[in-house]
């Protein structure tokens, strides 16, 4: 991977993107802090234990982790200039991303239909917004990925598109990392408490 890392970066844009990711990390940190503070604020409604469906969440997690793996494979393929293979892996990433988002929306839909919407209590507000912000990032990532694949098909691999794909890979891994925190702090610790 080291080879690929060198090839897919331009010093200025990768430093800038790293810094951007860290600021995004702070947005999530603020939301996590708020979530933890508001955790007891269930207003007599359900707490984390009562509403989380762990099998569904585990499936989501595995899907997202796999998508991170497929992005890695796509980057390896690109470093070998094998565009066709890279596009297949990027397509796989896209499908996994869509699957993740679908399950998340399904989970949200179930909660809302049972009357546990974001309006019901502060805990639920914090839950929906923290997890939803991550979901929004995934959505943005998917739009970005789609545009890049189209560009790759039309213009081929050049220094700009390879740089952008390198940044996208960083972004996607970062979202994976944030999800691991969500899975641990929101779901696992929520069910265990």
């Amino acid at each position, binding site marked *: 991977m080291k080879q690929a890392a060198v090839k897919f970066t331009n010093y200025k844009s990768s430093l800038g993107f790293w810094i951007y990711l*860290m600021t995004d990390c702070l947005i999530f940190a603020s939301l996590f802090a708020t979530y933890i503070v508001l955790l007891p604020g269930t207003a007599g409604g359900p707490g984390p234990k009562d509403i989380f469906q762990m099998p569904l969440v585990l499936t989501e997690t595995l899907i997202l982790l796999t998508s991170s793996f497929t992005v890695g494979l796509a980057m390896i393929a690109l470093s070998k200039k094998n565009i066709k293979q890279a596009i297949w892996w990027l397509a796989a990433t896209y499908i996994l991303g869509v699957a993740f988002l679908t399950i998340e929306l399904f989970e949200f839909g179930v909660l809302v239909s049972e009357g546990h919407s974001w309006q019901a209590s502060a805990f639920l507000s914090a839950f929906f917004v923290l997890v939803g912000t991550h979901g929004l990032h995934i959505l943005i990532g998917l739009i970005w990925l789609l545009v890049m694949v189209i560009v790759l098909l039309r213009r081929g691999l050049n220094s700009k598109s390879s740089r952008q794909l390198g940044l996208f890979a960083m972004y996607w891994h970062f979202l994976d990392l944030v999800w691991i925190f969500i899975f641990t702090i929101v779901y696992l610790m929520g069910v265990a408490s």
Partner: protein
Amino acid sequence: MKGWGIDMWGRLSLEALPHDIVTIGGVVGGGLAVLAGVAALTYFKKWGWLWREWITSLDHKKIGIMYMIVAVVMLLRGFADTLMLRAQQAVFGAGDGGPISADLFQQVFSAHGTIMIFFVAMGILFGALNLIVPLQIGARDVAFPLLNSISFWLFVAGMMLMNLSLAIGEFSTAGWLAYPPLSGLEYSPGTGVDYWLWSIQIAGIGSLLSGINFLVTIFTMRRKGMTLMKMPIFTWSVVGSMALVLWAFPILTATLAMLTLDRTIGTNFFTSDLGGNPMMYVNLIWAWGHPEVYILVLPAFGVFSEIVPVFSRKKLFGYKSMVMALMAITVLSFTVWLHHFFTMGAGANVNAFFGIMTMIIGIPTGVKVFNWIFTMYKGKVSFTSPMIWFMGFVVTFTLGGLTGVLLSVPGIDFQMHNSLFLVAHFHNMIIGGVVFGLFAGITYWWPKFTGFYLHEKLGKIAALCWIVGFLVAFVPIYILGLMGAARRLDSYDPSLGWQGLFVVAAVGVLIIGLGVVVQVAQVAYSIWKRKELRAPHDAWGGRTLEWYAHTPVPEYNFAVLDTVKSRDEFWQMKQENRFRSKSTLLPIELPKNTSAGFLIGMTAGLIGFAVIWHIWWLVVIGVIAVVGLVIWANLREETEFELSVGEILRHEKSMKRAGL
């Protein structure tokens, strides 16, 4: 069923137009000013020029100048708010009524704080950064020119929303930081808080992007040989300030988003029932808000650290300790936020920790004050107007620092909390620190970008008006605070005997106002007499690289980039007389103009407006448009053009012929 028309425009109806005479006056005045501008542009056929040379420009110097213009216009509006507040308190506060209703009074102080911090101080700050930083580090541009333009237009969009609230709807009545539950839907059902939220949010995202841009610029684009410890001290102060932007502004973005959701889709983060926690908001907003103070003041320190050595003909005393002090302040500024609400009741131990940290952060600041004074010591000090600002700063800022240490003691703070003493303290820091610093910087760097000096004598008169006016305006406010006057009062019982002091404070504001008038006159007079005031490229006997560039600075900044050898590089070059460059002239790549930044900014503003008024279809269109614009901006090819060696030579020669 409601009529289609009402649904379609959300909450927006003719009711939103202003009703009271003061606001109508403001709208008519502002509207006439805009109309005059439009008419002038049309009459002189300058629209194309405006679009090509300014709006779509990615040149950091032009963006810097645009920041400055917007910020100065907003300063005039913020100052008009001040006049209204002080007039109300001095003339009508002890009686009943007056032209300003209690509700309007609240809108005016909320607008005053928001404008002064977000659109004046931040605007001048980013203007100065754009103008100075690339030149000081010997670079040709910022790291991401398009991002820079987007940041600027987001700032403008925020500013436009802020001013639109005057004409359509209302502004927040919840103060400049909009504490819930007052700012929640239950107690502020109107559009005021929404205007506040969206204008700050959009401008804040612009600041965040600028933070990334400048940090990357400083870390990757310094001229060869300029190691970190050879960097000019202003650039160091920018490193501290931008690091704080990156740490603090994400918190603001998240916090504002949560309050927006509370108000828009009915979440319960900061409501007072259903488990919401308003104090969480107060914690979060100050975890941004306290560093924000240092974001503003660190570059002001940087400006003075440039000015004092130049006008003392000596190198800066204790460069390394200055850098360490800057970095110490950067880190420590995140450990003091709770001192804004000692009265929350976090307990004696927590309050003691934050009280002690607040006292500690005074130490690096003290180091800097001594460094400046020791730089002057035994120097050949020339008392130019930037130095008058500096000396006014040292005196007033130290006074403010002392009252700050006083407030840092939790026991005393319980007495002072929410009083005018606090108001006097932070105005002391912001006016005495930030504003004086930025004015000194504007006076100092003005000739670099215009080619002529600002009139010295008028500058000195303005500085003296500000310094004297500041003391006359705020010493009575300190005293009133000690007497128990709370902040944000539009009326008080005449038997308290406060009116005399309020009148003195209002006189002080008038003296400051005289200073502002003199400043406007100074700029106008200097432009008129620009031939007589013409400045050479090294206007003041400078020490850093920006004075090496031509005046006015060409688009490419420097024709050749030589290796930097010392800390005060330009000073050293002059001493060793090494001006003949050994580097060969190469073609220079410069960013092409693009309207992407302008369009993204304006569309973001449109989204804000649509959400404020609940016009959902417009929100959807706006979001799709922004996504499309970002993709379009990203797919642009050929984003740069090349300036050939011949063109550079021709330009350099013409500059030389003009004697510049």
